[in-house]
């Protein structure tokens, strides 16, 4: 620990920190994190191997892998897991493509650029609950703007589609909301990545007669690829874990068709009091996430090590 610091400069009278004197600076944040975040997380993992329930009088017992073998046979869980994956992919991919398109547009010298930049922030700053409520108003079978727009274009049936309650449309309807809600942050991140694109290289390629697509593939994409990978894997994780949006939009309905894993786990834990079982679900979700996280972290830490 100290070696890295000592190597950097004169030890005496320097503004550089020596590792020894820093614990009192680190402790105020580190202790709460350890006590209320790392600790509970380990506790939560342990709970997955117990039969913990709310309001039970007998002591909680270790049950080994029982929760997991129950999970394996729980078709509702598999349904929700599958829905979670479909949702996460279905949101992350369009989110990325649309955000990339918007970022490229905003990088151009267009007149309405400022408005798009300003508007792109709105979904980001909004409470997820409000985003859900807002889209319920849009999707509303009678008073919603979507049905009215389709009607005026002569596309929709007159009685109006109940988007969020229809078994065929519900998942698609919530996916659209997910895309809308997450696009801005992705756009801003990609815009920042675009600043890494060397302008001269772009111009040189244009001089050589490279078309827009070719320039994108050979100049732009290589420059933003690390940022794109990072934000996409984070988006996938966030989307897979999301809760509030769908809770407000459909509460998992109709008939469980939008019951994301988090909604399922929430119900098990706080409606039925099955803490152990819900914790096991959480751990199963981690397994999916871990793969992506490993990809993202290895990139990020490597990047950390390289700079300066």
């Amino acid at each position, binding site marked *: 620990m100290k070696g890295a610091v000592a190597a950097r400069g004169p030890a005496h009278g320097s503004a550089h920190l020596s590792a020894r004197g820093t614990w009192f600076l680190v402790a105020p944040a580190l202790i709460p994190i350890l006590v209320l975040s790392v600790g509970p997380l380990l*506790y939560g993992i342990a709970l997955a191997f117990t039969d913990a329930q709310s309001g039970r009088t007998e002591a909680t017992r270790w049950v080994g892998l029982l929760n997991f073998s129950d999970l394996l046979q729980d078709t509702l869980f598999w349904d929700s897991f599958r829905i979670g994956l479909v949702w996460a992919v279905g949101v992350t991919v369009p989110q990325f493509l649309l955000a990339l398109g918007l970022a490229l547009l905003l990088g151009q010298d267009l007149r309405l650029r400022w408005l798009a930049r300003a508007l792109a922030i709105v979904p980001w700053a909004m409470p997820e609950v409000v985003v859900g409520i807002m889209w319920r108003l849009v999707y509303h079978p009678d*008073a919603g703007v979507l049905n009215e727009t389709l009607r005026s274009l002569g596309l929709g049936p007159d009685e109006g589609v109940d988007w969020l309650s229809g078994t065929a449309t519900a998942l698609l309807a919530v996916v659209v909301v997910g895309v809308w809600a997450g696009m801005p942050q992705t756009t801003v991140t990609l815009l920042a990545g675009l600043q890494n694109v060397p302008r001269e290289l772009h111009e040189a390629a244009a001089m050589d007669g490279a078309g827009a697509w070719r320039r994108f593939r050979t100049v732009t994409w290589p420059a933003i690829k690390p940022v794109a990978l990072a934000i996409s894997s984070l988006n996938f994780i966030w989307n897979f874990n999301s809760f509030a949006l769908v809770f407000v939009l459909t509460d998992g309905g109709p008939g469980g068709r939008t019951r994301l894993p988090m909604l399922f*786990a929430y119900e098990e834990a706080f409606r039925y009091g099955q803490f152990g079982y819900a914790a096991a679900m959480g751990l199963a979700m981690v397994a999916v996430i871990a793969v992506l996280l490993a990809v993202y972290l290895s990139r990020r830490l490597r990047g950390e090590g390289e700079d300066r």
Partner: protein
Amino acid sequence: MTQDVPPRESSWPGRRRVTRRTAGRAGQYLALLCYLVFLAFPFLWLVSTAFKPPRELGTLHPTWIPRAPTLDNFRTAFDEQPLLRAAANSLLAAAVSALVAIVLATPMAYVLARLRTRFARAATGWVVVSQAFPLVLLIIPLFLVLKALHLVDARAGLVLVYVVWSLPFALWMLTGYVRAVPPELEEAAAVDGAGRLRTLVSVTGPLLAPGIVATGLFAFITAWNEFFFALVLLKSPEKQTMPVVLTHFLGAEGVADLGPLAAAALLATLPSLLLFAVIQRRITGGMLAGAVKN
């Protein structure tokens, strides 16, 4: 495609190239317009609904712009649900947790930015990991712990959770801001005979202040918007925060009084939207400095 010939340098830009460029421009504007519509229309609809009288809401052919705009929905919203109290609860939880998070995180962020050790790396790794865990794995044990401490259904319990929840992110952003302050400035001050503390307060502090404010406001916004922890931890109606109270407007069967619902939702959004507009540039800058630097 294959017969594409690179243009000669002296060549007069042919008519085809000009029209193609114009078409490209038009396509760009069309695409931008589609984005604008997609981004704006749900929000405009929310605003429109909030100002509509009941008879304009029930119709089969809703209007974009209310014919007889009214503030009745806002009045009804306040009558139906304890919105003021909910806003006060949210304000308290968000302000206290943001303030505490900043006070705790700033010193550690300073260390993380200036020290490049295994510990600093582990801490940074943890910041990322903590963003990725499904909250249910955290809330069940927290619920049990807080219950044992009699802090379930207590505002203090929620504030505690919010502090810890916003710490990693605050660390992340603040570390980025500290790195932006050149250590040479601190060294110069030290050469001039200023002590460590003096250097921090009079040299680094002022340079860091805008970043600290931005991080604090961002923590405030996230806590103001937060739903899951508040839903699980607060049961008494008089303690609930804005997002939780908003869901009460939805009613049991999802049947909602649309006007007041829209009005309340709009009110709940305004603080975070305004604050975000103020700090937007710093947030995106700070986050990127910490997040996707490769």
